[in-house]
């Protein structure tokens, strides 16, 4: 399978809204061994000035990877998911994600670079609320290993 060189510049929109729930924040926080009370206790989160439970710094990956899946699962992309390696990840938070947020995402394929028989693909997910408020920008680089890589 070869990577479609015309992927660069494409964008994909998540068709479903991601509703951030308290239990999802608690589950994710436990999963990354976070202990800060603002992830678990609404009163503690409010004490810090937040409207509700605050998500851990890498929580946006849930939404970003759903957006990435649109590209990886696009039959036209030529990407074999079993050969995908996560090479780089960056989060920029425009504001904290809190329980009650209704999030949408648009994925942009910013770069496609051939590497041997494989390719390095850089994607950017712009995550915002349904009302259009910008929440986070995530950038990931995935390496699609070629044969024998």
């Amino acid at each position: 399978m070869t990577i479609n060189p015309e992927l660069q510049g494409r964008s994909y929109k998540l068709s479903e809204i991601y509703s951030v729930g308290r239990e999802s924040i608690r589950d994710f926080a436990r999963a990354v061994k976070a202990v800060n009370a603002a992830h678990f206790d609404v009163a503690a989160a409010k004490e810090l000035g937040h409207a509700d439970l605050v998500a851990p710094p890498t929580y946006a990956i849930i939404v970003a990877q759903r957006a990435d899946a649109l590209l990886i699962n696009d039959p036209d992309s030529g990407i074999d998911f079993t050969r995908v390696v996560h090479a780089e990840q960056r989060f920029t938070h425009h504001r904290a994600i809190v329980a009650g947020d209704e999030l949408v995402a648009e994925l942009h394929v910013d770069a496609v670079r051939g590497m041997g028989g494989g390719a390095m693909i850089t994607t950017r997910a712009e995550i915002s609320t349904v009302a259009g408020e910008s929440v986070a920008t995530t950038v990931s680089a995935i390496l699609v290993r070629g044969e024998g890589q």
Partner: protein
Amino acid sequence: MTKTALNIADLSVGTVIGTRTLEISRADLVRYAGASGDFNPIHWNERFAREVELPGVIAHGMFTMGAAVQLVTDWVGDPSAVVSYGTRFTKPVPVADIDGAPGAAVEVTGVVGALDADAGTARIDLTVTLDGQKVLVKAQALVRLA
């Protein structure tokens, strides 16, 4: 607004903010898969992992990244103070299947890498190693202190 007891004037570049050992078991990877929605079998299926030429089940890079930054979150006090965070993933973290003991132990150290008094931010550089070798490279979190 970020609430923290830390004052940027009290910090200097090179200050160690903390260090900890992150013990990882197979159960941690299952929990992370469920919480994140990343069910790639290389993180829970030994047979599949070996078929794709990995040494065995490996941790999600995002698990290591997400757990490593807790050192920063605990230091600053408010998780929303982490305004940006990025890393490169350079080596996989194999997690052995051992009863009653962690399958891997990753060392995390955080150091103040840069300070910007005007912006009220500190860059924390994380060193994240397994058996002395870096598994995250250029792991940096920008933290708002004021």
